[in-house]
C-alpha cells in the first residue's frame, strides 16, 4: 500500500508535470510556425503578382531586335559614307 501511494505521488508530482511541459513546448513551437508560414505565403503571392509584368519582356525583346536592326542599318550607311581610318 505504501508503494502504491509512493507511485501515486510520483505520477502526480513528476509524470504529469513532465507530460504537460513537453506537450506545451510542442504546441508552442507548432503555433509559432503558423504566422511564419502565413508570411511566406503572403510573400509568395506578392512575388507572383510582381511577376505579372514578365510578359512585357517579350515586347522588350521585340523592341531590342528592332533597335539593333535600325542600328545595323545606320551603321551600314555610316560604313559607306565615311572613309575608313588611314593606317
Amino acid at each position, binding site marked *: 500500500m505504501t508503494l502504491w501511494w509512493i507511485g501515486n505521488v510520483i505520477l502526480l508530482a513528476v509524470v504529469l508535470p513532465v507530460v504537460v511541459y513537453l506537450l506545451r513546448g510542442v504546441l508552442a513551437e507548432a503555433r509559432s510556425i503558423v504566422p511564419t508560414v502565413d508570411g511566406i505565403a503572403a510573400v509568395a503571392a506578392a512575388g507572383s503578382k510582381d511577376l505579372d509584368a514578365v510578359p512585357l519582356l517579350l515586347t522588350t525583346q521585340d523592341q531590342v531586335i528592332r533597335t539593333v536592326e535600325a542600328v545595323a542599318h545606320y551603321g551600314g550607311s555610316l560604313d559607306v559614307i565615311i572613309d575608313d*581610318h588611314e593606317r
Partner: protein
Amino acid sequence: MPAAGVVLLVAVVLIVLALVYYLVATIVALRQIVAGLDRTIAGVGEIIEKTAPVAPVVSTINEHLDAAVDALEGLLVKKAGMEDAVGLVDGLYPGAAAAGFRNYPESREVAAPRISEVYTRGTLTLARLGREAPIAVVSPTGGPVLRDVTGGSLAARALYPEARQTRPEKLSRSPVIGTDSPVQYEPSAEPGVRRRMPTTEGTPRADTGAV
C-alpha cells in the same frame, strides 16, 4: 476501492486529459501550417510558371545587344582608328578608356587622347563625321592641348573639309546683286516664271534697255 486506487485513477485521468488537450491543439496548429504551406506552394508555382520564359527572352536580348556592341565597336575602330576611338569614348564617358573595347583587348593599352578637354561633345560628333579631322592624333595623353585659346574659333575650321579654309580662291564667288551687277535679272511677271535668261555684262543683246 481503496483511496490509493482512486488517487491513481484521478492521476491517470488528468494525464489523459492533458494529452488530449495539447495534442488536439497541436493538430489544429499543424493543420494551419499545412494550409499556409499550400498557399505558399501555389504562389511559388505561379512564380516558377511566370519566370519560365525569362531566361530565353533575356538570352535573346543579350545576344542582340552583344551583336550591336560588336558592330558598333568595329565600326568605330574602323572609321576613327583605335587611338581616336578610345579617345572619343573616353571623352564621352570619362574613365571608359581603362576598360577598353570588349572585342579589342589591345585598346586597354592605348593612351587615350584628351579629346574631351579640347572639344565639346557636339564638336566631337562633327569631328568624327568629318573626313579630315584627326583632332586627337597630335595630342596624346600628356601632350599639349590642341586648342589655341587666343584663336579658338579658327581651330574649328580644321573640322571641315580642307577646301573651305585653305583654298577659298577655288570656290565660286557669291553672286553680286544690284543695278550694276554683272548679271541682271528681270523681275518676273509671276512667281516662278522668268521672262528671259539673264545676260552678263558685255554680252550682245537685242534689247539694250535698262532694267
